[in-house]
């Protein structure tokens, strides 16, 4: 199609947003889906429609790594080489693919069939090592399945694929979040309704005040499960009651923390639980418009959630006058385009408004001035999915499942060197040791070396430190954090320096580049680690790394720099001896190799 042909669709998209510029990512997606890439002509077209200069369109295109500015192959094979996949052989996988396709990352086969891309965490660590072929996640890619994915990559798009549907372990028996996870094809409206679906929403809309809802959620001790652990009810209470401005509910479905893959299962297997949670939350804060910001790589999640939203509209659970209660709620699903930082709630808002994913200065906080400068609550998918349970079964029940300060369960994501990676719904009081045991323990009978308990940003724990409960407060007391619930397990075969190098690469790739300490510090740290890995390190480097990490921490707009600093600090401090040994032995090996060089 030509750009002119896309204009009617573009007009429809514009209608979904309060401000034209917010249609930036959807319009860029529209162009790329149609033309395969985003040309300069298309950038000008998007700029014209949005009333934005071309430089700002190009800022967005260049910031999000899923957009192509040049034609690419008919298919794109995106291979994840982030830490969780690396622990399970991603480097060997990438080598095999490179060898078979005879191209490197960033290149396209000469016949234009497939473009190979190396990407950071796709948040499908339960199937690692894994890759994404166009929209589909495939893994684990071991042995014969590697040949199958290459075969599929070379097959015309739309043909049946030979790689099997991933089948990792996923909890199915609840008690809160995973009760409708059994069907990999998803739980749709009729099934949801027969399983007490929308009972809580009906109760809230017909018999409760917003304050009742906030009180109930507060006494349930529901904490923000995106990673910060902030009490959800309290967050809702920050929205000003007396304001003429519209209020927005924004769902953070930008699941991006390496080692985390829970929100995807909620959206794909039980999407109505999220929608019901959204209705209740929107009612509590007085919002009639909600956005769901889903990471761009989650094509299937977006499609399934859209299907559920359509069902809900069709049956009067969304839109005007929901079930005759007089309450209105519109929901727009908005896809990101490849930027981890957009999981930070203010970066998410900037991105949703059509900008680069730059975190915002606080104050003002989003509850006062967020999306389109209006009061906004940003909640994680899992947090909202807990809400119907709380309103249906009572705050006391939910609170009783957890600890004194944190109610309920979490969908713990266990990956890395365990026998059975997957999603485990457990009360938050479970210990890390128990959780690892649930996942079958450490693979191959190996000894445990270290665990990252809450996504790659969390400080690492040694094998001696795993008798700790997985709730926010216990892990904080243990000097780390519960974060996103992503548990990355490392056995004795893990090289700490390589693991840290991988984490550092992730943060260097994903820094938005706004604040100088983070922009320069993440790259600097990664380059030092590359040098150490290459055998050119010195012991002084370890102290420099600690000093640089210390200088990054706490000095930026958002906590990304802190998150980048914590692995550096914890890996080096807790495994100093191993790091020093590595530097000494690799350095002497490197010197032997170059010894022939006359000085």
């Amino acid at each position, binding site marked *: 199609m030509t750009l002119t042909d896309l204009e009617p669709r573009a007009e429809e998209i514009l209608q979904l947003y309060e401000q034209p510029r917010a249609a930036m990512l959807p319009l860029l997606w529209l162009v790329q889906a149609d033309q395969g890439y985003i040309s*300069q002509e298309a*950038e000008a077209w998007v700029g014209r429609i949005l009333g*934005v*200069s*071309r*430089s*700002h369109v*190009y*800022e967005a295109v*260049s*910031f999000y790594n899923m957009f192509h500015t040049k034609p690419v192959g008919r298919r794109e094979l995106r291979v994840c080489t982030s830490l969780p996949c690396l622990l399970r052989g991603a480097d060997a996988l990438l080598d095999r693919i490179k060898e078979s396709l005879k191209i490197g990352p960033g290149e396209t086969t000469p016949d234009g069939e497939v473009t190979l891309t190396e990407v950071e965490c796709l948040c499908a660590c339960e199937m690692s090592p894994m890759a994404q072929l166009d929209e589909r996640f495939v893994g684990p890619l071991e042995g014969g399945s590697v040949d199958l994915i290459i075969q599929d990559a070379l097959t015309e798009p739309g043909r049946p694929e030979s790689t099997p549907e991933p089948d990792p372990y996923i909890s199915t028996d609840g008690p809160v979040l995973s009760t409708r996870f059994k069907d990999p094809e998803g739980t749709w409206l009729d099934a949801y309704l027969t399983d007490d679906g929308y009972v809580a929403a009906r109760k809230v809309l017909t018999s409760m005040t917003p304050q009742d809802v906030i009180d109930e959620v507060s006494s349930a001790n529901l904490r923000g499960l995106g990673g910060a652990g902030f009490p959800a009810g309290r967050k809702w209470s920050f929205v000003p009651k007396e304001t003429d401005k519209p209020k927005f509910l924004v769902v953070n479905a930008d699941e991006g923390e390496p080692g985390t893959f829970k929100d995807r299962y909620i959206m794909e297997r039980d999407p109505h639980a999220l929608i019901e949670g959204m209705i209740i939350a929107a009612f509590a804060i007085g919002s009639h418009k909600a956005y769901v910001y889903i990471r761009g790589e989650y094509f299937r999640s977006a499609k399934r959630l859209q299907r559920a939203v359509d069902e809900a509209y069709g049956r009067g659970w969304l839109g005007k006058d929901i079930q005759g209660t007089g309450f209105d709620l519109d929901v727009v699903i908005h896809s990101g385009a490849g*930027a981890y930082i957009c999981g930070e709630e203010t970066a998410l808002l900037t991105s949703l408004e059509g900008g*680069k994913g730059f975190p915002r*200065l606080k*104050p003002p906080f989003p509850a006062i001035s967020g999306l389109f400068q209006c009061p906004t609550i940003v909640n994680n998918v899992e947090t909202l999915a807990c809400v119907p349970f709380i309103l249906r079964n009572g705050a006391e029940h939910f609170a009783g499942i957890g600890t004194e300060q944190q109610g309920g369960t979490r969908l713990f994501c266990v990956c890395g060197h365990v026998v059975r990676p997957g999603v485990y719904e457990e009360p938050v009081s479970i210990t890390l040791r128990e959780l690892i045991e649930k996942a079958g323990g450490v693979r191959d009978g190996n000894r445990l070396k270290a665990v990252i308990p809450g996504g790659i940003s969390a400080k690492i724990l040694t094998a001696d430190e795993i008798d700790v409960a997985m709730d926010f407060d216990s892990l904080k007391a243990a000097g780390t954090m519960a974060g996103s619930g992503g548990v990355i397990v490392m056995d004795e075969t893990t090289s700490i320096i390589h693991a840290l190098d991988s984490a550092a690469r992730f943060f*260097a*790739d*994903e*820094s*938005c*580049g*706004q*604040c*100088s*300490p983070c*922009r*320069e*510090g*993440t*790259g*600097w740290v990664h*380059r*030092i680690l590359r*040098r150490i890995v290459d055998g050119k390190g010195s012991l002084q480097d370890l102290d*420099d790394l600690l*000093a640089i990490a210390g*200088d*990054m921490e*706490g*000095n*930026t*707009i958002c906590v990304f720099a802190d998150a980048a600093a914590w692995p550096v600090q914890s890996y080096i401090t807790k495994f100093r001896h191993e790091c020093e040994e590595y530097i000494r032995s690799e350095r002497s090996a490197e010197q032997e190799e170059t010894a022939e060089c006359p000085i």
Partner: protein
Amino acid sequence: MPNLTINGREVSVADGTTVIQAAETLGIFIPRYCYHPGLSIAGNCRICLVEVENNPKLQIACNAPVSEGMVVHTKSDMAEDGRRAVLEFLLANHPLDCPVCDQSGECDLQNFYMNFGLYNPRFREHKVKKRKAVELGPHVMLDQERCILCSRCVRFTDEITKTGEFGIFNRGDRAELGLYPGDVLDNPYSANVVDICPVGALTESDFRFKARVWYLSSAATVCNGCSQGCNVDMHYMLDRPHLNDGNRVVRIKPRYNPDVNQWWICDEGRYGFGWADQARLGKVRGPSTDSAEASWEQALTTISTALEGSDNEQERSRIGVIASAQLTCEELFLIRQIFRDALGAQVTTSVSEEPGSSDDFLIKSDKNPNTLGATLLGLAVPDAPDAAQLLDAALGGDLEALWVFGHDLVKLFGEEKIRQLSEKVPLFVYSGTNENPTVPLAHWVLPSAAYVEKDGTFVNCHGRVQRIGRVFPPLEDSREDWRFLLELADQLGLQFDWQGPERIFQGLAETVASFKGLSYETIGTQGVEVVTATEGAVAP
């Protein structure tokens, strides 16, 4: 009005003030790169970190609102250590090419490093390579490696010119400043981004490799490019003429004036200074041959005698003066006193000119800096004739003398007409700064000092009287108009007790109602409104 303490000193400021602003009221300067008072807050550079008591983290002063009882330390160990760290990060990938950087000497990376640098660098990695010497447009060069991504220029083209040329593309340490591929930075205010760039990323093409900034002297004045009267600093160099093709003016920078131009000037004004050094009239020329040199004394004696001779039996004077709104109020006042009032001459500054370019920001279509001053002195229509009427009178044989200040009549009325004028009128005097086609046709040519070579005042189009400052002495034999006008008055036997511009202005203020009560002292460096300033003022 929260009360807070900064570095042990108490201050009370308005609600909504930020710490960086509150500190400024105490004269405490907090370093900044991304913060600029004329732009929105970005908060990205992090150099303005300060310690706020009872807060475990350092806060950025540019976005920290003041609150009652707040205790701020800008120079504590914690604050300085934070800033040292930020500076180390900013320099990590910086090319450190200060020896060949035009910004050197006025670079805030250098300046702040002097105060709290690490002085023991530990960056040993390869630096990120980006593009250097990128020509962004007619006036601005970009060095991406020197850029610290503070986004001041991006915010300038977004918020001030609303032209949106700049962007920061990519992310992490690959982020780079630039224009959209193929775009040109040519908006009428483009070079302001050079002024606000705190480092050597954006430099002026015009100034490129011309001189080290520490060779430059600076003087405060007002742009004469249009009737807005933007405040500027003239940067000049007298002792190294070889570096600048013999020219004295090297560059112009905007000077902050909240009521006139804030922090900005247009490119037209910024690069309109060439005439001050080039094609100048340097010698007095008499009538014996086209370019015969003569002395000022000869000229003024001859001219004054002729002017007295044409006096003044008739009802209408046979002397015409086409003065100029390029002249200062003081000079126009002298012209009024001498020609109009003493000699009864017909005097005007009104010349029909094509209106120039204009916008709704700073650029005005009237390219004269002092039209309103001339009007207040009664030397412009409707209180005075139009230049065309005087010209017609001269061509009709009704004038014995015509004095033209600065106007190129050939350009305005055509060469043929002025040639006739030259033959028809017995005395045709031209005084001005530069060569033009009218000059060879005048009987006497008097070289005037350029406005940068004299003191005086202009009244801008909003009624603000502002002082221009003498930057350097007049070139060659040129003289300030006020000086030779006083000399002429002396020849004519007029008793003026005014030795220089300041005293002339005093006379003006005593005579012309709009200026009543004003003096150079009250005008100061930022000017005052003429009309409002006169209200309630006591006449001396």
